[in-house]
């Protein structure tokens, strides 16, 4: 298969257009020669007409391609292209005329060949100008196009295409059919010329420029049209290419649209500032509504707010009054006024009605606006808009002007909208910050939780004489329950369980103190009562006066199968005796650590010891288990715990612990939240 190179429409059409023009010229010259030599001319005028049509279409294609390819298609640039083409065409045409004036009455001036050549040059330039202009107008007309406009334009193009062929019927005579065609095209042009939606989008300066360019186009079109008329009167032109309905119709279209654009642009000049203002307001609104980006702060929003409001109201001065953290007023973002004057003016304004009606505490300041006369030279009127976030008033926007009653309804509306949007942005910013802060606190608590979990032992010391299992869960992120074991001697173990008063973070801190004290004191290998006494002294120095710690301390001697213990206000340990299959709480008096911080405490410390037997079970726990409540407000209680242990005493310590926790959870039910920490230590003797 032969692969055709992808033809470049622009280049191809340009080439064809040039060739066609040369052909036109050649045909004409042939015709001149035959007429000079009085030869029978066999070149029909239709050949010229056909070439002319081909020329029109190729020029159209060329410009169409050029404009659609061009990236810089703003309105002003488009109009400038039309104007520049017009300038070139007129300039060349002027040069030709000038050339003829120079020739005067010389023989060359009436030379048919030269005249025809220049005629062809003029024809080509006029065609280029008109077609390029029409295509530029097409772009302008189809700006913000609707289906109807597109259809209308397509119909116009078809009409113009037909008008190209009109020449075959009419032979260049100015008859009624020609006039009829021209009128139809003119009417169509007028109806298309109402599509001027691009004009409002020009800025004030651009409008002036476009007026200038349009004037150039109008002058160029008028001059070229005059030039064209003078040719049609000349007898030396053999085939008139320019008295063509297509060209005349295009003239009419280009001219009418230019005039319309010129007039509408001119009359739009005074209102263009309003349109520009609205556009700026829309952009400001968008800037305000964009949520504040990271690294920015609410100050930036307030900065945009004051600038937008100032420009919307054409205010002469303005500032913001914001409440700081202590509820004191501070002035920020003063515009065209200094701080000293602001505070004077501020006092003046707030002494006057209606401004004095404002109350920071009122909950319905949102959407309220205060405006009125003031008398503080040079300012004569003021507008005050409260800024509210979350129904509390956080500040006020002040605008003043040097004219009386200078704030109209539209200004107030737009400023209220600005203020509302700014407040939303500020509120969002504050909420976001709070969320970030909360997130950080949560992170910190998670770290605290990890640290605290690590304070509870992973492994519990024991030997082959007993097995041990433990469990702890906190109601909050961190808790105040504590248990630990320590090998005092080869077959002697210390076991402790403790519960810090209160809960949460403070309890967790005190629990870590308790751990420290335990680890220090066990090094001295104290008896249980010695441990309790020394721990009370130590804790008395560091606990807050309304805090205390309850604890039970056990020493298990596996050589003598002996347990010695002391209790310091902690809930009594449950003991299962395998020999009689009975469960009982180990009763012993004792007072919580830190309750009595003097030597008097020692009289309340007691110590007991007893022998354990095989398969006995000792259950150490914290009061969270006993006080766990179900939906009806009933506590799990000592009795239920006793029965649970009794039922499960045959199991391993781990299983016993699981059974008890299971029982507690099923008792309180799924819906009830834990409100205290639960801890268990289960010891079973072998």
């Amino acid at each position, binding site marked *: 298969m032969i692969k055709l190179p992808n033809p470049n429409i622009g280049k191809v059409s340009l080439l064809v257009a040039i060739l066609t023009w040369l052909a036109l010229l050649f045909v004409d010259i042939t015709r001149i020669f035959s007429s000079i030599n009085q030869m029978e001319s066999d070149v029909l005028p239709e050949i010229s007409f056909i070439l002319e049509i081909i020329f029109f279409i190729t020029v159209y294609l060329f410009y169409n391609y050029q404009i659609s390819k061009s990236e810089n298609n703003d309105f002003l640039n488009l109009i400038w292209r039309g104007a520049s083409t017009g300038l070139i065409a007129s300039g060349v045409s002027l040069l030709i005329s000038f050339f003829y004036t120079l020739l005067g009455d010389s023989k060359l001036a009436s030379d048919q060949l030269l005249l025809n050549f220049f005629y062809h040059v003029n024809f080509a330039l006029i065609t280029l100008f008109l077609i390029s202009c029409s295509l530029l107008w097409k772009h302008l007309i189809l700006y913000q196009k609707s289906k109807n406009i597109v259809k209308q334009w397509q119909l116009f193009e078809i009409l113009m295409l037909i008008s190209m062929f009109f020449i075959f019927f009419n032979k260049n005579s100015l008859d009624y059919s020609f006039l009829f065609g021209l009128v139809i095209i003119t009417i169509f042009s007028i109806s298309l010329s109402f599509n001027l939606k691009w004009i409002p989008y020009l800025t004030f300066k651009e409008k002036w420029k476009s007026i200038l360019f349009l004037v150039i186009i109008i002058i160029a079109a008028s001059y070229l049209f005059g030039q064209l008329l003078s040719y049609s009167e000349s007898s030396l032109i053999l085939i008139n290419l320019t008295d063509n309905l297509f060209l005349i119709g295009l003239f009419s279209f280009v001219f009418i649209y230019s005039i319309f654009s010129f007039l509408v642009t001119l009359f739009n000049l005074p209102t263009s500032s309003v349109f520009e203002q609205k556009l700026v307001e829309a952009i400001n609104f968008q800037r305000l509504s964009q949520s504040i980006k990271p690294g920015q702060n609410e100050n930036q929003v307030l900065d945009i707010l004051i600038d937008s409001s100032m420009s919307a109201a054409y205010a002469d001065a303005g500032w913001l009054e914001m409440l700081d953290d202590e509820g004191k007023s501070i002035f920020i973002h003063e515009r065209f006024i200094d701080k000293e004057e602001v505070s004077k003016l501020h006092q003046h304004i707030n002494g006057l009605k209606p401004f004095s009606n404002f109350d920071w505490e009122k909950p319905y300041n949102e959407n309220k606006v205060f405006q009125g006369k003031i008398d503080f030279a040079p300012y004569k009127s003021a507008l005050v808009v409260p800024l509210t976030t979350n129904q509390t008033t956080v500040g006020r926007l002040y605008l003043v002007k040097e004219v009386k009653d200078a704030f109209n309804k539209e200004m107030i509306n737009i400023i209220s909208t600005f203020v509302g949007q700014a407040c939303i942005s500020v509120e969002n910013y504050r909420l976001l910050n709070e969320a970030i802060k909360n997130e950080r606190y949560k992170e910190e608590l998670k770290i605290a939780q990890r640290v605290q979990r690590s304070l509870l032992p992973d492994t519990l010391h024991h030997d082959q004489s007993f097995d041990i299992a433990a469990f702890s869960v906190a109601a909050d992120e961190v808790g105040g329950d504590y248990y630990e074991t320590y090998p005092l001697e080869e077959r002697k173990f210390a076991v402790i369980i403790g519960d810090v008063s209160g809960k949460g973070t403070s309890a967790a801190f005190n629990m870590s103190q308790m751990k420290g004290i335990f680890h220090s004191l066990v090094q001295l290998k104290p008896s249980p009562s010695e441990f309790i006494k020394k721990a009370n002294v130590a804790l008395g120095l560091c606990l807050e006066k*309304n805090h*205390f710690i309850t604890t039970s301390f056990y020493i298990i001697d596996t050589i003598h199968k002996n347990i010695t213990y002391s209790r310091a206000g902690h809930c009594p340990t449950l003991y299962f005796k395998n020999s009689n299959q009975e469960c009982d709480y180990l009763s012993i008096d004792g007072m919580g650590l830190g309750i009595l*911080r003097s030597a008097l405490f020692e009289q309340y410390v007691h110590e007991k010891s007893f022998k354990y037997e095989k398969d006995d079970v000792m259950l150490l726990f914290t009061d969270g288990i006993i*006080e766990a409540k179900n939906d009806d407000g009933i506590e799990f209680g000592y009795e239920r715990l006793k029965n649970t242990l009794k039922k499960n005493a045959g199991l391993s310590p781990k299983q016993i612990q699981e059974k008890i926790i299971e029982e507690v959870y099923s008792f309180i039910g799924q819906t009830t939240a834990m409100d205290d920490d639960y801890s268990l230590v289960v010891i079973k003797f072998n």
Partner: protein
Amino acid sequence: MLDIKNIKEANYSTLQLEGEVDASNSVELDGAIQSVLDEGIDRILVDARQLDYISSAGLGVFMSYLEEFQEKNIKLVIYGLQEKVYQVFVILGLDKLMAIKSSEEEAIEELK
């Protein structure tokens, strides 16, 4: 929920506790005791007949005043504790340090 009523008598004040004292409202109990003390009253009865529960934080409030009461010779007597609540005081050993009576008459007697 905790409801505290302060009832003034000729030579003493009664704090009537109703509901539960836990970590979240122990501050209220502390405030009530403090305000009675601020009035210069040195004989306080605590009517705990309607007290259903007291947590360690609540016990901490009573505990924190023990020393001050002893120094300034202020008497605080609790009466009418429900058995379950009383056990909490006993387990902690607070019954040894505080005057706890079963009836109002005994409590008033204790104040003298």
